[in-house]
């Protein structure tokens, strides 16, 4: 079965090619059949491969498959080759299964679009193919191919409704900001190849650990550059500004690309290159610090948004901050576990929000929603399941188990572990608060806008499946204090290093504190937004409250600073030099020649006697020179 691995990424690409070339001749049913079917088949093969991998682990707990030699120049020979270990098994399963559910959902969600149905599915298929290439790549160059491919799809899908220039702007912003990180990654690739002579990930890790000393400057450079790539793609500080704007795309796109899969590519990259990060503790601590900082900042911003998708976007940034925190403190399996649960509940939240948005005629402002609990009970219950998981309600939700593992890992880490833990805890409180602010504003209170939609099976089924997964996925990895069945961690540890252990009693205490934080957040939200909404309103009237609200609402002013300092300067400089300053000397030469021409043409009087005079004069001068000078 394992040798069918190549079909997993190839099938979505085939779907893309068929839809891109012949999409215009298919009707919507056929387009949906091809678009969804290719991902479905891919998911099927991923399940088969994954099942086979778990049941009968191949030798060395990994499996490689090389298709062809991509480049072979001067000792540089990356192949188009796939590498499967427990890390990539988890990634491909999440990408294909969640991807499939989102495709099913999209088939109905996008049905009313006047045009671009085939274009939408073509891009979505291309995205899934690129994402699978990214996670299966055997070498960093192929990873980079997938990495840029998902970036391109993100651009195409954010700008899906292209007639609005604002969408185009958001799409370009996403591509350009992530490209800044990608370029750092590219330089990292150059450095790694130059120093270690290969880009194949496993030999690279091997060589790095053999040749390089822990904490040496080259490991800092290499890991730092890779981190740059991860920051851009995963929307972490200071490159996080693109993600909230990326919500301009259709909601299934936000669910698939900007919540479940692409934005976690940075976490995957760090986990994949874990040896390099372990070799440079400085950078690894930076990863944790960036994660902690981002999760707090994004949490505050999420608290102030009006647009339901922007709340979810900031929440995604914040949750990826948790994953960064986890990989930063060396809790590798916790990071992957949170990646998985987050993919489930965040995709669910986006898709449920999508149903609401569709039902309210593309109204996204939460203050114009309300009372939807009665109108769409199924959406409400699934959304609630996702929210509880996001807020990490103790014991019964998946989010609790994954977040708990991260907090335990933070506590256990050597480098400022207490501070990181405290940040994570604060984030947990914030998460509960902003999540249930969203729930209460949207589903409780007065009905503001009537809901017109009878969601079909294709919209609802993915919600139900993901709601189920958001609750039960947590039981895959039960900590020692609660059942001690770490199947997931054991599986991940075949490819990633072990997490540092802490004492069982400490772990139990941490769990209790974390539970209190998340329940406290939910209760605070209940108090502020359902029972006493006037209190928040009064708070926002105070000058400090208004200023803070404004500051958080615009995402801590990063956009403002970038627009004015970098983008504005660049555009002004470029436009000022539109006529090309280097053309001036060339035009100057031409002008001098023209001036000379005018002067000399004056001497051409057309008079015979004038010419004769000049000939005589010239002859006299010439004779004079010959006689007197020589």
């Amino acid at each position: 079965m394992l040798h069918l691995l190549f079909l997993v990424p190839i099938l979505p690409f085939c779907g893309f090619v068929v839809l891109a070339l012949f999409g215009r001749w298919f009707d919507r049913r056929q387009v949906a059949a091809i678009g969804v079917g290719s991902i479905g088949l891919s998911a099927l093969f991923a399940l088969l491969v994954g099942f086979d991998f778990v049941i009968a682990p191949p030798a060395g707990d990994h499996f490689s498959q090389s298709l062809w030699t991509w480049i072979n120049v001067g000792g540089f020979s990356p192949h188009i080759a796939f590498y499967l270990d427990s890390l990539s098994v988890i990634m491909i399963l999440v990408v294909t299964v969640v991807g499939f559910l989102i495709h099913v959902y999209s088939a109905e969600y996008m049905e009313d679009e006047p045009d671009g149905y085939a274009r939408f599915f073509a891009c979505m298929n291309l995205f899934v193919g690129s994402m699978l290439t990214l996670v299966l790549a055997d070498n960093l160059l192929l990873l980079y191919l997938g990495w840029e491919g998902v970036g391109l799809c993100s651009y195409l899908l954010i700008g899906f409704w292209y007639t609005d220039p604002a969408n185009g702007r958001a799409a370009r912003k996403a591509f350009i900001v992530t490209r800044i990180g990608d370029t750092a990654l590219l330089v990292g690739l150059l450095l790694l190849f130059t120093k270690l002579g290969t880009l194949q990930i496993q030999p690279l890790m091997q060589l790095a650990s053999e040749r390089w000393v822990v904490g040496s400057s080259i490991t800092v450079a290499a890991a730092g550059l890779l981190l740059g790539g991860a920051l851009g793609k995963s929307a972490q500080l200071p490159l996080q500004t693109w993600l909230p704007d990326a919500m301009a795309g259709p909601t299934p796109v936000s669910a698939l690309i900007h919540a479940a899969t692409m934005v976690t590519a940075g976490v995957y990259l760090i986990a994949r290159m874990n040896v390099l990060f372990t070799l440079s503790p400085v950078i690894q601590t930076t990863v944790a610090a960036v994660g902690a900082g981002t999760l707090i900042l994004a949490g505050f911003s999420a608290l102030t948004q009006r647009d339901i998708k922007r709340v979810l976007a900031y929440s995604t940034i914040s949750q990826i901050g948790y994953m960064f925190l986890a990989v930063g403190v060396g809790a590798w399996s916790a990071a992957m576990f949170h990646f998985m649960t987050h993919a489930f509940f965040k995709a669910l939240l986006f898709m449920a929000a999508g149903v609401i948005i569709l039902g309210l005629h593309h109204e996204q402002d939460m203050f114009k929603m309300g009372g939807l609990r009665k109108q769409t009970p199924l959406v409400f219950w699934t959304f609630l399941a996702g929210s509880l998981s996001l807020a990490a309600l103790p014991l019964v939700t998946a989010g609790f188990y994954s977040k708990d593992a991260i907090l335990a890992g933070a506590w256990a880490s050597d480098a400022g572990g207490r501070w990181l833990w405290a940040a994570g805890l604060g984030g947990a409180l914030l998460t509960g608060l902003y999540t249930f602010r969203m729930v209460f504003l949207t589903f409780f209170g007065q009905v503001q806008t009537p809901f017109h939609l009878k969601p079909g099976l294709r919209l609802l089924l993915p919600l139900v499946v993901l709601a189920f997964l958001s609750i039960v996925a947590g039981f895959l990895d039960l900590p020692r204090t609660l059942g001690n069945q770490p199947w997931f961690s054991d599986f991940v540890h075949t490819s990633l290093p072990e997490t540092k252990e802490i004492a069982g009693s400490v772990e139990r205490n941490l769990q209790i504190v974390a539970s209190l934080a998340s329940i406290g957040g939910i209760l605070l939200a209940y108090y502020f937004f359902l029972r006493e909404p006037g209190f928040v309103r009064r708070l926002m009237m105070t000058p400090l409250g208004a200023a803070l609200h404004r500051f958080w609402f615009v995402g801590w002013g990063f956009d403002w600073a970038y627009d004015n300092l970098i983008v504005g300067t660049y555009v002004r400089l470029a436009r000022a030099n539109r006529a090309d300053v280097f053309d001036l000397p060339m035009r100057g030469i031409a002008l001098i020649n023209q001036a000379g021409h005018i002067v000399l043409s004056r001497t051409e009087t057309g008079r015979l006697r004038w010419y004769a005079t000049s000939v005589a004069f010239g002859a006299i001068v010439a004779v004079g020179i010959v006689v007197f000078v020589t």
Partner: protein
Amino acid sequence: MASIPMEQGLLLAGVLFAIGLTGVLVRRNIIFVLLSLEVMLNAAGLAFIVAGYRWGQPDGQVLFLFVLTMAAAEVSVGLALVLQLHRVFKTLDVDVASRMRG
């Protein structure tokens, strides 16, 4: 036969040449310009003959024959131009024919 000193011959040639040049430069009537040109040609020819005589070489006279034939050719072309000039501009003033002003 008393020989004429070379200096005197050359002086004559020079004077003739100067007269011819002055004629070319100051006369506006094209016929006079052509006449002055002939004077200049003959001045040059005279210089050749004097020089040839001085060194006892025939080259000077040969060259004078060339100057004569060339002058004849030049006159025929020149007179044709004079006729054209007269036909087009109804005048013999060369300054009128200044269309090639830069």
